[in-house]
């Protein structure tokens, strides 16, 4: 017995978690309670009509932008108030810190980016990526409350429905964080918006030099898609900006088709694209993890395959 407390730093992510929380709450015989914190407090009704029986709001300015210390306090106080048996937190690289800290204070486990959430043997259970994408671990939460962080874009967000649940403002006692943000700067993303792309052609380290990114650009152009990339291409080599970076620290995407060019499939990257409808790998290494999680794989030299593919796509589309 107990409620399912749900919260996420991003509203869309929160809707997706509500879809996953509903069946869990029904099984444990509890309610779905959503915590709409910071900017989300103003759109509480959006959560109430997407599956939350009860929405708790707090618009304390200490909650914007997301910082680990105040959110640790907020989550702990919400757990104290709701006394949930399950807590689902939308996984981002910051919220994972707060989730782990909350779990430590409560001396319980914390599920890391759990997929396929379910109750098994009465306990919260699910899968997570392990060994840099080479395996999937099935994990079970052993202690109450059962806390799990959950990735974005695993499921579709539910459409709003009916009058929805109740909304209630709560006061949280938040102290100023010791780790102070002295500067916060959004990097320019230009016209690239990977989250909206139906087709993404992703460049990995199999692309040997910056000029060869043209292969990815040509294929994306022929398909009417956008160019994404892995962490080394964006972060280490800086051949492309962060707007193109797919992965845990970059953008999480769910296109109709993801085509990886020389992408090995390291865990951080796969975390950002595993929900793509179709995954295509073009890579000469057949042991590459991405080849093993692909729908279609061409195990060959991308420098030969991609130009042929561009021609074939153009022909097929009558270009």
């Amino acid at each position, binding site marked *: 017995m107990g409620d399912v407390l749900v919260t996420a730093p991003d509203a869309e992510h929160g809707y997706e978690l509500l879809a996953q929380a509903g069946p869990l709450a029904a099984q444990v015989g509890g309610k779905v309670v959503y915590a709409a914190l910071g900017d989300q407090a103003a759109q509480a009704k959006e959560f109430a009509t997407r599956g939350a029986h009860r929405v708790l709001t707090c618009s304390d300015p200490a909650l914007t932008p997301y910082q680990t*210390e105040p959110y*640790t306090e907020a989550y702990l106080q919400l757990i104290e108030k709701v006394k949930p048996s399950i807590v689902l937190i939308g996984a981002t*690289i*910051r919220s*994972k810190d707060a989730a*782990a*800290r909350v779990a*430590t204070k409560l001396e*319980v*486990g*914390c599920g*890391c980016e759990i997929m396929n959430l379910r109750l098994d043997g009465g306990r919260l259970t699910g899968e997570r990526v*392990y*060994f*840099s*994408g*080479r*395996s*999937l*671990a*099935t*994990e*079970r939460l*052993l*202690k109450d409350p059962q806390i799990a962080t959950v990735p974005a874009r695993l499921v579709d967000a539910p459409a709003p429905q009916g009058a929805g649940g109740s909304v209630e403002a709560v006061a949280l006692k938040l102290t100023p*964080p*010791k*780790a102070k*943000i*002295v*500067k916060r*700067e*959004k*990097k320019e*993303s230009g016209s690239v918006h990977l989250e909206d792309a139906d087709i993404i052609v992703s460049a990995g380290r199999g692309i040997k030099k910056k000029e060869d990114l043209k292969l990815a650009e040509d294929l994306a152009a022929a398909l*009417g898609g956008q160019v994404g990339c892995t962490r080394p291409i964006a*972060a*280490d080599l800086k051949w492309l900006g*962060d707007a193109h*970076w797919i992965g845990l*620290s970059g953008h999480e995407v769910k296109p*109709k*088709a993801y085509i990886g060019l020389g992408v090995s499939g390291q865990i*951080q990257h796969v975390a950002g694209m595993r929900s793509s409808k*179709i995954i295509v790998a073009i890579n000469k290494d057949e042991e590459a993890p991405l080849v*093993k*999680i*692909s729908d*279609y*794989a*061409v195990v*060959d*030299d991308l420098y*030969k*395959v991609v130009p*042929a*593919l561009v021609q*074939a*796509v153009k*022909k097929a589309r009558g270009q």
Partner: protein
Amino acid sequence: MRIVPLVKQVVDVDQVKADADGNIQTQGVPFKISNYDKNGVEAAVRIKEKNPGTEIVALATGPNIKEGVKEVLAMGCDKAFVINSSEFKGSDTLASSRVIAAAIQKMGGADLIIGGEGSLDAYTGFLGPRLSMRLGIPIVTYAVGLEVQGNLAKVRSNVGGILEDFEVPLPCIVTVSEEINQPRLPALIQILQAGKKPTQEWKLSDVGLSADAVGEAGAGVKILKNQAPKMERKRVRIKGTPEEAAEQLVQALRKEGVF
């Protein structure tokens, strides 16, 4: 100032294989220092280069860590405390954070604890945040820049296209991303000297923990199985010349309704 890099020795994930039933086998797979932890050691050594008088004390765990720790000693750590991880096998981060926190207290604390953003094997990124809670000190994760000025750590962190610059009073914990630096390759002389640097091995009892605080008894998460991903994916291998493969791929994408 005392800097404590956290170092974890893991199985080389590139060499793990699934058996016929799909279960991941790690037996006989060689060990290596988790790569992000080397970025952490490098960050510590660079801070020491700018701040004379700094002491770098590695806290290292792993199945064969007495040997493995020499690599980070050669990179520039002054000494090391090691705990063989077979003592807390089956631990999740709830349990392993008890071990690391107790060891840090036993060594008399640290001004700056540096970890990797995650470990190569499990990659939760939870150990740093859990330690910060146990030790009651602030944390910044996924650092791409780190300096110490006086009593402040200045940390730059990249959060998916947003750069955040932090000022954090010491003592604190910082976990680093691989973009922060290129870990040095020690010279032969440093490798030879590493074996002579003080290394002390602790048992769980040395840090005041009993067996039921760690391992499966102390864990909050249990791994039921660890298997090669079973494919809901189609796993079609397209063969032929590049032109033939391209043609087949276009047909497949059409059939899938991609275009």
